[in-house]
């Protein structure tokens, strides 16, 4: 359970995952935040107004996956770095996955990085597709990688380079 070890259990994950039908339709955001903490920047970050918090700032974010277009603007807005974009249609065998990243080294486009699961285990190699550094994102980078489809729902962080920077 999340509260015991910081890792989502399958039941907890199911409460926030888009439907398999929606996953087949293209990029969609997944907000891995299920605690009622006082926080709401994701709501105003969404141009499609797909994220709501009906009871106020301590409500859990509710993402309408149907209206979500998977643009990724919410990824860097989340102070908890808890939002990811998954596109299962990237190719026949691969999905694309967009994650927030605030560490060194910064991977270059084309570079192969390790895909880490929620327990920090390297489960696959991933190719870096995009690295977005925007002034608006204030040093939170938004990185898109290509992962084998079977790992798209497990990988939630990357490890670039051999070490962690100088």
């Amino acid at each position, binding site marked *: 359970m999340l509260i015991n070890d910081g890792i989502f259990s399958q039941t907890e994950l199911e409460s926030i995952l888009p439907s398999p039908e929606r996953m087949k339709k293209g990029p969609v955001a997944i907000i891995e935040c299920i605690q009622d903490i006082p926080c709401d920047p994701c709501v105003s970050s969404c141009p499609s107004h797909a994220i709501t918090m009906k009871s106020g700032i301590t409500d859990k974010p509710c993402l309408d996956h149907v209206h979500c277009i998977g643009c990724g603007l919410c990824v860097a807005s989340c102070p908890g770095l808890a939002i990811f974009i998954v596109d299962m249609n990237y190719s026949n065998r691969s999905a694309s996955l967009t994650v927030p990243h*605030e*560490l*060194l080294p*910064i991977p270059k486009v084309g570079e192969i990085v390790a895909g880490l699961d929620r327990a920090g285990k390297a489960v696959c190699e991933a190719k870096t597709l995009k690295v977005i550094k925007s002034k608006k994102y204030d*040093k939170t980078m938004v990185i898109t990688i290509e992962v084998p489809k079977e790992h798209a729902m497990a990988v939630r962080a990357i490890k670039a380079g051999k*070490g962690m*920077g*100088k």
Partner: protein
Amino acid sequence: MGLRIEEHPILSFKKGRKINFFFEGKNMEGFEGEPIAAALHAAGVRLLRHSPHKNRARGFFCAIGRCSSCMMEVDGEVNTMTCITPLTDGMQIKMQKGHGVIKP
């Protein structure tokens, strides 16, 4: 990988000019203006003094000049709180035993 952070994903560190100082007579490098205890820490020095009664090792602790763990003799003055005292060129830093000896 040394202890000084050369590159950081969020922060950049403005340092003064590189200078030399002496710890127990040994020549060391640091940056002008940074706390003495931080410069020693970066150089790998963990032991700063020994406690007065039980001779226990004492080092960097609170970093804000409150706990007195980091007291050392600096340019002849004992009980200098090295975590909040800025490093200057040619400074002489020595360990002290306990409360040190204040010369009359």
